[in-house]
Every structure is written in C-alpha cells, then in structure tokens.
C-alpha cells in the first residue's frame, strides 16, 4: 500500500468508526421519536420495531391536551431561572473580576465549593425552610431553588470572560463621567454579550430540566413542570408508552432548539465550565 492509499483507508475507517459511535449515541433519541408515533398496541407487543411500524399522531393529540400546561410551567421556570442567574451573576462576576475587593478569594472559593454541593442536601433543607416561609408550591420558590444549579457556574464563567475585557474600556467611560453602574450597564454588559448568552442558555436548560427540586418543593397540584408531570404520568400509566414518549419529545425540544440556534454558546459553555476551574 502506498502512503496515500494508507491515509485514505485510515480516513475511511475513522469516518466509519465515528458514524458507528454516533449511531450508538443518538439511538436512544431516535427510538423516542419513533416510539412517539407508534400506537400503544405496537409498543406493548413483544417485538421492538426499529423502523416506524404503524405511524399515528394520536399520542401527540393526547399529550398536547394533557401536558400543554406543564410545558408552559417549565417554560416559565426556565426563563425565570435564566433571569435570576442574569440578575445575580452578571454584576457579581464583574465585581469579582474587576474590583479589588478583599472578599474575592473567599467568594470565588465558596462558588467553586458550591458547585460540589449535592442538590439533595439543599432540597431537604429548602423543603422545610420553604414550608416555614410559605414558598412551597410556588414559582418563586422553585426558581430560587433551581438557581443553585446555574448561579455558581454562571458567576465563574462570566468572571473568566470579564478578565479578558481591557481595563482601558472602563477607564475611558469613567473619564467621560459615567457612574460605575452606567459603565457596567452600557459598556461591560454589551461587550460580554456572548458569555451572558451562554450562561442564560445553561440556566434556562437547568430550570427546564430540573426534577429534584420540582419533586421536593412542589407537591404537583398548583405548579407542575413537564419533568414532574412525565414522572407522575409514568407512575400512573406505565403501559402508555406512546404518550410518555411524545411528552419526552416535547421535553427535549428546547435542548434541540438550543443545539441548533445556540450551538456555539453551548460548546463554549461546556468547556468554560472546566477552564474556569
């Protein structure tokens, strides 16, 4: 074999290997989409069909009626978490990157440690605290709890970004007579747009996908996001896989949309999570 032939064979092998691994990685998602179009009769049979067997839209009709409210709830929680992360994290990250404060080392260490704290520890306490201050079964309560995923990460990622802003930009604004707040809002935030979008995308997905806080600080009567609804539905109607799978498709939609629309931000956010570390 010549060198050229060998490199061509190698390249072909790589493509085949990559495609094979992608098939394995993506198969579960494919299976969900296919199953969401199958009848319950097909899904309860003894045979699994790898290709659509007897396609129907019936599951989606069932789900749109039953789950539309829960999808809206998840949307509110996701947006709420993103807004909370924005309000809390952006100014804090700016201060931790650009102001000479004694507390910085302590606070950044606390944020790194906060990322390690398991959610169940927070959830157990928050359940009792929320009970006490009447935040159980409420949007504010759930959003405050969901912020624990997003906020430490957001501050650390944004702080790493703000380091890269040249100090001259802010000094120029100050010379022009801008207050600290005006400098932050008109100069720093617009320059940090891409990092801000990254943390908002992640905060939204955290709020949308949360289950543990939904399970603990809600009782599923007044506020019930889609994850909790799917879990409850699965417990009550384990046999109705078609409807469950159609709900799952809806639960994955935001992530899929983000992957297409904000792919750049997702990839940078995933790696930034370790770079800041």
């Amino acid at each position, binding site marked *: 074999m010549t060198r050229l032939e060998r490199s061509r064979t190698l*390249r072909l092998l*790589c*493509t085949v*290997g*990559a495609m094979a*691994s*992608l098939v394995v*990685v*993506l198969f*579960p998602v494919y299976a969900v989409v296919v199953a969401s179009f199958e009848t319950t009769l097909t899904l*309860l049979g003894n*045979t699994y069909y790898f290709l659509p067997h007897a396609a129907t839209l019936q599951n989606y009709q069932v789900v749109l009626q039953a789950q539309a409210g829960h999808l809206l709830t998840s949307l509110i929680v996701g947006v709420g978490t993103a807004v909370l992360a924005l309000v809390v994290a952006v*100014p*804090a990250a*700016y*201060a*931790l990157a*650009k*102001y*000479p*404060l004694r507390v910085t080392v302590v*606070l*950044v260490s*606390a944020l790194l440690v906060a*990322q*390690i704290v*398991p959610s*169940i*520890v927070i*959830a*157990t*306490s928050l359940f*009792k*605290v929320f009970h006490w201050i009447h935040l159980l079964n409420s949007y504010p309560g759930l959003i405050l709890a969901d912020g*624990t995923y997003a*906020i430490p990460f957001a501050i650390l990622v944004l702080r*790493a970004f703000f380091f890269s802003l040249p100090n001259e930009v802010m000094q120029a604004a100050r010379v022009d007579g801008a*207050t*600290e*707040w005006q400098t932050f809002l008109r100069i720093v935030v617009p320059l940090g747009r891409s990092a801000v979008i990254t943390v908002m995308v992640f905060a939204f997905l955290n709020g*949308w*996908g949360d*289950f*543990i806080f939904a*399970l*603990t600080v809600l009782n599923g009567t007044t506020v019930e996001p889609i994850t909790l609804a*799917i*879990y409850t539905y*699965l417990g009550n109607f384990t046999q109705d896989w078609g409807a*469950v799978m159609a709900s*799952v498709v809806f639960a*994955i939609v935001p992530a899929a949309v983000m*992957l297409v629309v904000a792919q750049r931000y*997702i*990839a940078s956010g*995933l*790696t930034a999570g*370790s770079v*800041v*570390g």
Partner: protein
Amino acid sequence: MAGVRAATGVGADADIARQNDELGPSARSGRGQLTAGRRRQLAGWLFLAPAILYLLFAFALPIAYNVMLSFEESSPETIASFTAPFAGLANYRFILSDPTTQSAIIHTFEFTAGSLIGQFIIGFTLALLFSLRFPGRTIGRSLIIVPWLVPLLVTGVIFKFLFQLEGGAVNQILLDIGLAHHPIDWLETPQLGLLTILIANIWLGVPFFFLLLYSGLQDIPIEVKEAAVMDGAGPWQRLRLVIVPIILPVIEVTVLLGFVFTVKVFDLVVALTGGGPANATQLITTWSYNLSFQQFIFGEGAALNNVLLVLALICAPVYLWLSRDSLRRSTGAAR
C-alpha cells in the same frame, strides 16, 4: 430605554450615597465627596450584594440547617415545625447501622467508579477519533453533545423504555444477534439494575468527557506530535508518552468534575428503577430522599446528606488547588 438606564444609574448613586452616610465622616474626603477608590469599593460591594445574599440563602442556610436537622429527632409529626427535640448522635448511629444505608453507600461507590471509568474510556477514545481529519467530523462533533442536553429525568425514562423486558430495544438487539435466547429482565434483577443505571449514566456523561478532552487535545502543538512521529514513536507510544502527559491537567479536571457530577446523580435513578428492585439500585441520594420524603424521618435523611456532603467535599481541596491560578488572579484585580 436610555431613560430607564439613567434612572437606575441615579438609583445606584443614591445607594452609594446612603452607604456613604452610614460609614460616617471617616469615609468622606475633605469636600464631603467619596474618593474615587472608596466609591469604586462600594460599587463593587453593591454589585456583589445579590450574589452574597443568594449564596447565604441557597447554600449556607440549607447546609447549616441540614446539620441542625441531623441532630434532631424528627418524625412525621415534626415535619411542619422548624425544630424538633435534640437527638444527639442517634440519627448517625441509625444510618451507620442500617443495612440499606450501607448498601446505598457501596452502590454509590460502585456506580461512581464504574461511570468514571466508562465515561473516560469512551470519551477519550471519541476525542482521539474526532481529532483526526475525516469527512463529517464537524457535524459529528456537535451531535455527540446531544445526550448531555437531555434532562436527566428524561434520560431515565428513555432508558426505562429501551431496557423493557418485553419489546424493549436492547433485548430485541440481543435476541436478534443471538447473544440472548430469552428476554433479560434488566430492571427487575438486582445485579442488572445497577448495571442498567450505570449504562444510562455513562451514555449521558460521555459528551462532557468527550468535549473537555477533545478541547484539551486541540491545544497540543502540532510540532510536538510531528516530533514524536519523527523520532519513530508508534501510535501507542505517542499516546502514552506524549499526548497523555501533556493533557494530564485537563484529564484531572475532567475526572474531578465527573466525580462531583456522578455522586449527585438522582433523577436518572428515580426514573429508571426508583432504587429497586429490593433497594438494589438505591444510591445515597435516592435513599436520602426516601428517608426524608417518603418515610418522613428528616433527621436520618439529613444525617445521610451530611455523609454525602463530606464524600463530595473530599475533592474540594483538589478542586481549589487546580483552580489556584484563577483564584490568585482575583487578588491582583484591576486597580
């Protein structure tokens, strides 16, 4: 819009002025005005205030309260009250002697070790594969991230569907290729249950390992790789003697974050097995939930939470040490 901004700007000034008043004359310069340095200091604190309040409310308070709960004798009757009678070490004695708790701790170790090994091997292999040049690598690279974006509970539901006894895709594949002669009851056989949650968790964690290790591999200078080829190193030698040593810091961070992530796993197991069959897939997190929210013994649940917290925080010093550059940088922030 500009009006709103100006208005909030004024608000911030008023806040600074108020703080200034509280600080008294010593904080003022001769003309009754803040010096630029002090004004900036105050602005920094105001920018930090929401985050500090949030951290106190959502992290410090729950952790402290959790410690308090773990020394209380709780029962379904005390669920509504903020405090309960002092119980000494009774809750800790209970969880350390309870067989289900012990097995949950062992499962957590097995699950974490298995996940990290699986995720690292697969993630690293894919990262090496996608570092080579071949058609379709760009689109493939972005598609590998998909499992990471699926909500964890949903992943559990999906794998429950795939691993069904009758008509499940996994059993169908095994039957079709002749690896099994009758359907396997994955979710109802104790040993297989743990394997199933392990497989599901590896699936969802591979993208994270892949992406971090891949970006680490991209940072290796091409000259280094070429030099190794020139010196006649084979692929295995290049990997072991050149690539791994260079990206070792990235590997450390990735495994550390993977550990932190895996000891927390909850949603996946609740959806997939619910801790069953016969508590065979009960992890510390799911068993803690069971104690607190199903048996309503919050004291015992809180005690187990503290065991979990200590386990998770073991890696905190390592994490802080690996982040030392970023920490140090903060002390010399712009002046």
